[in-house]
């Protein structure tokens, strides 16, 4: 957040004080609901009687202020702002009889419920942590009895150990060094090897697809690999001056013939 201040235009002391009055410290909040709960406290009423309309206004004001200060707000704050703007319009405008969605009042009531529930959880969490706790206020036996008869070995393992062991096995494959599974891959080297042996006999233009090796034509995966390798090998041979290539039009078969056979 401090970076955001640094990058923005210089802020006067007065402007900064004004901003602080609005507590624009988004970092202090755990999400939009938390921010809403804090804002709702300024209404100084029971959460059950809170004005959602007023709260929406406060939240939108907060977001405006943050924008004016060029603070970057996380996306979920903006999503909440958009939703509250929508809610505000639903609450202010007369209900549309054709709309069978939830009414503005229903939505507002649910938001009030969420705020009350979060406040209640905060409250009981604090009460829970304030209880007398084992090892802090209440103590177990400091010296569990050590009776040395009947020593028994017990193997221990926790659920966490078990789950981590499983995860380790199941993710092992993801992290082995990267190796291509080669059984469906025909390499350019293999294609070159094969074609070097065959082009000597190819005096006439022949479709390069006729050079696909045995057993690589039916399975589409293997066929694709062999085609790519054969094509690459053909270009390689043409570059080396050993063959000529031609294609009559786009997508037409690519044909090849040996140069040596013709020239030599």
């Amino acid at each position: 957040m401090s970076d955001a201040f640094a990058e923005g235009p210089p802020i006067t002391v007065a402007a900064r004080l004004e901003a602080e009055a609005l507590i624009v410290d988004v970092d202090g909040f755990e999400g939009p609901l938390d921010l809403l709960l804090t804002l709702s406290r300024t209404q100084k009423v029971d959460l059950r009687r809170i004005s959602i309309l007023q709260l929406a206004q406060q939240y939108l004001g907060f977001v405006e202020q943050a924008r004016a200060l060029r603070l970057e707000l996380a996306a979920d704050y903006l999503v909440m702002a958009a939703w509250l703007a929508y809610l505000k319009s639903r609450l202010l405008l007369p209900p549309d009889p054709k709309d069978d969605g939830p009414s503005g009042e229903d939505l507002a009531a649910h938001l009030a419920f969420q705020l009350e529930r979060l406040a209640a959880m905060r409250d009981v969490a604090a009460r829970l942590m304030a209880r007398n706790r084992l090892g802090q206020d209440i103590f177990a036996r400091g010296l569990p009895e050590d009776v040395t008869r009947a020593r028994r070995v017990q193997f221990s393992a926790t659920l966490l150990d078990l789950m981590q062991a499983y995860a380790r096995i199941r993710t092992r494959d993801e992290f082995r060094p990267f190796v291509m599974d080669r059984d469906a891959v025909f390499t350019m080297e293999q294609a070159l090897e094969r074609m070097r042996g065959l082009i000597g006999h190819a005096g006439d233009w022949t479709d390069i697809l006729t050079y696909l090796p045995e057993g690589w034509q039916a399975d589409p995966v293997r066929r694709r690999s062999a085609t790519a390798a054969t094509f690459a090998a053909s270009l390689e041979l043409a570059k080396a001056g050993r063959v000529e290539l031609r294609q009559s039009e786009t997508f037409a078969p690519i044909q090849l013939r040996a140069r040596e056979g013709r020239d030599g």
Partner: protein
Amino acid sequence: MADAPRDTLFDAPPMGDQERMVEAMLFASATPLTVANLAARMPHGCDPAEALAHLRRRYDGRGVHLVRVGDAWAMRTAPDLGFLMRNEVVETRKLSRAAIETLAIIAYHQPVTRAEIEEIRGVSVSRGTVDQLIELDWVRLGRRKLTPGRPVTFVVTPEFLDHFGLESARDLPGVAELRAAGLLDNRPPPGMGPALGEVDPDDPPPDQSELFAD
């Protein structure tokens, strides 16, 4: 006496002796013991439940109490004497606010899914938060929810109860008021289709092998 008189034809020992036995076993153990644990080690025909009731009265008001933890029982120092045990205090990692709130939500709403926790807090539960609670042995996996997707749920453990001095989850502070106020209800947002984390209800629940095929 070295041989436990188990499975003898004699009568069970008098209740006074049974009480001593239960007292000794609970005293020797740092962790709570269930009635079944106690019975398994006592001579045949004993009634540890009754012995526990006597023992509890005997320790009433003493410096050490007999407390109930879920289905089990343990001896614990009286809470008002904690100040004497400063030397014994176990330093614990301070829990983050997120972890404390997540713990409270799991305790009060259990069994609860991750999506439900997030819905209540209004933010996503960060990696490591639940992990930390599981590592502390305060939270464990519960039964999967029978909603589509069969999400895993979290529940609190007997260690949680023991740590916070609770007999059961019903004794959580304020739980009755929260329930009466409807704040523990699972109330879906109005007009929303299926609740968070739910998927197409026509989707059959995946079987075990599918679930774990990553």
